[in-house]
């Protein structure tokens, strides 16, 4: 329902946030200066696996400006173990995760000592004067080798295998038995893919300031999750939750990378308590890359069963997922978020998913944009292309014959999810038209016939994803330790202005703008009259924060419900003021009127009457504020069709994206400007996985990509312009009809790019290339490819060890 003269929902409003961001008036955590503030610097292990024999802090302690030097032993009694909130199985192995290593380090980058000094330069100086003796242990790095348990990351656990999680459609009753489908299949394809390790690479380095004064710990942190952080810090330490206030001021990007309870947040809190003075820690980029959690890092063994006519029947997914050295907040659950998405938009009869989480001596992994779903989408969209090649069919045709038709919604999948709405035909038709699919195929033929040095490839990704995390009962069933609801409050101020308090915690998404639009639309107040408060546990006392494309579909819905509560009460009071029956009150354009008369009261009049409370109906409380908490019944399922054309230089291996069309169905759009922006940024990150980015550890476990000179976050010159548009089938599971858009671009784009590159060079004998598809890898595959074209072995050139995946 729109209560404004012109609908606010759907309007490309310029952002409220921008005024401060384009003028340098922003409130980043590192901008905060407090009187008497000290600076913390962290010494990190240069070795990946070692016993700590001795730490000598005597020289560092004596240095000018140094207030205190502490080791893990000094904090051992109070630092507890960093929380893991997602024990995916009852028997999951979970090693203690000290914020600072006490006697053993398990990855290069782990904190071993800290310095508190009067400025950051002096703190860094003192780090260099700390002497640590290590007794090195064998390092466990390779995922496939780690499962053999030759050397152990955590000897006390007796194994490197953390947990194995299974979904089986026959057991769940959602489909048939996958082994039967494979045994009876006319075609069986088996492929192994590697999801390389990625680094979220938010632009704002992490920063924490803790002020212990006034009988309260006030913590500013560059975090996505102020509410969860407060809860977890109190659960980890002996500090009571009501004595902790967490503020996430302006936060410079997260992408899942700031969905964490970090060692440094805990250490900064403990250091400030010990010193009785404010303490700040701001990381360097290299610290960020070697200690903030990484993403992806899986080996996927996929078996697909089909009939010769192209109908898919069974899908078996066997994963190894690298946890790194410790389980962070939701590490074990990340691959599980993909478990329900491998079947994607296709109608499989049988499905089985088995994931084994594995410890290695590397930086811990956790959420990174898409979290589990990009991996799933990559695997299935690559497999659909593989099947098309195997059967000599057009890759779009094979998708079309297997996908859920628009008239079949709602549709319960073989993974047990109920997709509420969607129209894959519509999105695909629009994408094919914008892309010029047939013309590009013709050009591709010409180039192949000419033997052109630059070959053309076309890649498809008809993706869906699940977001809007999440129904609390589902999270409970998955053994997640928290709920998935979201909360909102609306405070109607006596002058008619509106304060909105949300439990979501934006870090670039533009919630201040979009939440204002939703409330303005609902209450009929001017967009400018709405102020959105967020990211401070003192003003927003509860919330589940921002990740998993949940903020709009869950938090926005809470906001709608709160606005409806305001209107319900206001309608009662308006009827009282206008001396009429409530049933005769109409509300439009921010004004209540008596049906068929000219008698009217604006919402502002009614709010003021509620505030002064001089004449309220019997039993009505003064004020017009409302709170609402929304717990969704279902996830939301955005989908779309992405088409990518690449030109591959067969002489240099260089890949150039020639055109990229993204047609997304994210349900109702509140602000098209912001939705486009989210898609653009998402595409960039997905393309970066396909072509550029990889976190590499050398044979000793040292991260060799620990700067932006080595870890290739794409620049403007590396990316093309995208053609983005939308089709829309509103979600039926929330009143706004929204589905979420934060991760869609990232989830969809990686397989579109890789499929496209392979399509360009497959006729030259190349069957697979490991990501990222660097010029060197493409060129190498092409050399082997031409030599080996006569032996089309499964897995093919450039593909990884076929022993990967679940053993």
């Amino acid at each position, binding site marked *: 329902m729109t209560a404004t003269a012109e609908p606010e929902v759907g309007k490309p409003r310029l952002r409220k946030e921008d005024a401060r961001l*384009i003028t*340098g008036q922003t409130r980043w955590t590192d901008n905060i200066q407090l009187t008497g503030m000290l600076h913390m610097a962290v010494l990190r292990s240069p070795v990946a696996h070692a016993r700590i024999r001795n730490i000598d802090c005597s020289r560092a302690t004596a240095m000018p400006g140094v207030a205190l030097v502490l080791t893990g032993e000094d904090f051992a009694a109070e630092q507890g173990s960093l929380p893991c909130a997602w024990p995916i199985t009852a028997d999951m192995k979970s090693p203690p995760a000290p914020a600072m290593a006490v006697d053993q380090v398990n990855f290069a980058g782990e904190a071993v000592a800290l310095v508190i000094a009067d400025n950051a330069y002096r703190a860094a100086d003192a780090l260099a004067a700390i002497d640590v003796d290590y007794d090195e242990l064998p390092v466990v790095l390779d995922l496939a080798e780690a499962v053999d348990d030759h050397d152990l990351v955590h000897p006390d656990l007796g194994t490197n295998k953390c947990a194995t999680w299974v979904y089986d459609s026959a057991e769940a009753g959602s489909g048939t038995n996958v082994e039967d489908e494979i045994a009876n299949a006319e075609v069986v394809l088996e492929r192994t893919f590697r999801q390389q390790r990625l680094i979220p690479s938010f*632009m704002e380095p992490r920063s924490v300031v803790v002020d212990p004064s006034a009988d309260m710990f006030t913590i500013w942190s560059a975090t996505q999750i102020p509410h969860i952080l407060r809860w977890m810090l109190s659960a980890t330490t002996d500090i009571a939750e009501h004595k902790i206030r967490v503020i996430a001021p302006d936060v410079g990007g997260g992408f899942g990378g700031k969905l964490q309870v970090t060692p440094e947040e805990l250490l900064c809190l403990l250091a400030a308590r010990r010193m009785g003075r404010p303490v700040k820690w701001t990381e360097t980029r290299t610290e960020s890359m070697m200690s903030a959690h990484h993403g992806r890092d899986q080996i996927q063994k996929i078996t697909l069963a089909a009939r010769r006519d192209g109908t898919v029947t069974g899908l078996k997914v066997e994963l190894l997922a690298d946890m790194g050295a410790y389980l962070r907040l939701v590490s074990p659950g990340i691959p599980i978020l993909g478990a329900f998405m491998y079947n994607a938009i296709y109608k499989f009869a049988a499905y089985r998913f088995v994931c084994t989480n594995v410890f290695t001596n590397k930086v811990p992994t956790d959420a990174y944009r898409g979290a589990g779903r990009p991996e799933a989408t990559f695997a299935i969209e690559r497999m659909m292309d593989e099947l098309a090649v195997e059967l000599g069919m057009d890759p779009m045709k094979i998708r079309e014959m297997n996908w859920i038709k628009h008239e079949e919604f709602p549709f319960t999948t073989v993974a047990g999810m109920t997709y509420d709405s969607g129209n894959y035909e519509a999105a695909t038709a629009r994408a094919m038209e914008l892309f010029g699919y047939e013309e590009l195929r013709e050009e591709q033929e010409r180039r192949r016939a000419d033997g052109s040095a630059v070959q053309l490839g076309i890649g498809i990704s008809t993706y869906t994803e699940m977001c809007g995390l999440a129904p609390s009962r589902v999270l409970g069933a998955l053994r997640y330790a928290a709920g998935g609801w979201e909360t909102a409050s609306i405070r109607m101020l006596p002058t008619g202005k509106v304060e909105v308090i949300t439990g979501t915690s934006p870090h670039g998404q533009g919630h201040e703008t979009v939440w204002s639009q939703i409330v303005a639309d609902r209450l009929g107040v001017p967009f400018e009259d709405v102020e959105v408060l967020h990211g401070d546990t003192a003003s927003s006392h509860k919330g589940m924060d921002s990740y998993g494309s949940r903020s709009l579909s869950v938090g926005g819905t809470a906001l709608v419900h709160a606005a409806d509560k305001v209107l319900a009460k206001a309608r009662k009071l308006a009827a009282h003021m206008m001396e009429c029956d409530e049933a005769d009150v109409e509300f439009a354009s921010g004004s209540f009127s008596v049906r068929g008369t000219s008698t009217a009261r604006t919402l502002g009049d009614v709010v003021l009457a509620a505030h002064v409370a001089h004449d309220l109906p019997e039993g009505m409380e003064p004020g017009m504020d409302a709170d609402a908490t929304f717990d969704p019944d279902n996830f939301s399922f955005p989908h779309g069709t992405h088409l990518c054309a690449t030109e591959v230089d067969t002489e240099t291996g260089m890949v150039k994206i020639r055109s990229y069309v993204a047609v997304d169905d994210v349900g109702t759009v509140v602000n098209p400007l*912001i939705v486009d922006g989210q898609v653009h940024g998402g595409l960039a990150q997905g393309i970066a996985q396909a072509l550029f980015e990889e976190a590499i550890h050398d044979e000793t476990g040292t991260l060799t990509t620990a700067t932006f000179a080595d870890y290739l976050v794409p620049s403007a010159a590396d990316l093309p312009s995208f053609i983005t548009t939308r089709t829309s089938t509103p979600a039926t599971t929330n009143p706004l009809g929204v589905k979420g858009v934060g991760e869609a671009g990232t989830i969809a784009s990686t397989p579109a790019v890789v499929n496209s590159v392979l399509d360009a060079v497959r006729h030259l004998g190349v069957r697979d290339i490991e990501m990222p598809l660097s010029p060197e890898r493409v060129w190498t595959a092409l050399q082997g490819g031409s030599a080996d074209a006569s032996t089309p072995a499964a897995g093919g050139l450039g593909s990884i060890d076929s022993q990967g995946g679940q053993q």
Partner: protein
Amino acid sequence: MKISVNVDGVTYADEVEPRLLLVHYLRERLGRTGTVVGCDTGNCGACTVHLDGHSIKSCQMFAVQANGHEITTIEGLARDGRLHPVQEAFRNNHALQCGFCTPGMIMQAIDLLADESDPDDETVRKGLEGNLCRCTGYQNIVRAVQDAAHRMRPGAGPKMEQHSDEHVTSKQPVGGE
């Protein structure tokens, strides 16, 4: 060491350690926190400011190297409460999300537009290669820079603010000093 630096129109005289980075001088000593630090290696460009009108990465310079020079930061761009056209264009084209790279990106874009008054897509992308953004995929940044170029082109402003040279020279007194 003693230095004297003009920052956003104000001259500061300070005693600094020789090793103090310019960006830390701006942020920690002068409180000009609009300029930020995104990396340690000069790759991300978040710390970009102008030194005597040209863009530099302030994490790659010592404060002492700015002695006797003029620095302009993102906080010194607006004139009389009016935003610089590049700032306006970034807002109007949704060229920022988290906004952390934005100050550096805007400073670099202004430098680029000083050399290229009507840059095509590729020129903008190459000109901004030293500034990383993780949120936007750059598309709207490119659009914003081109939009700003159009606004800044001679004759692009409101009519009353337009003065042709002819109009001005015709009013000059003729002959003599």
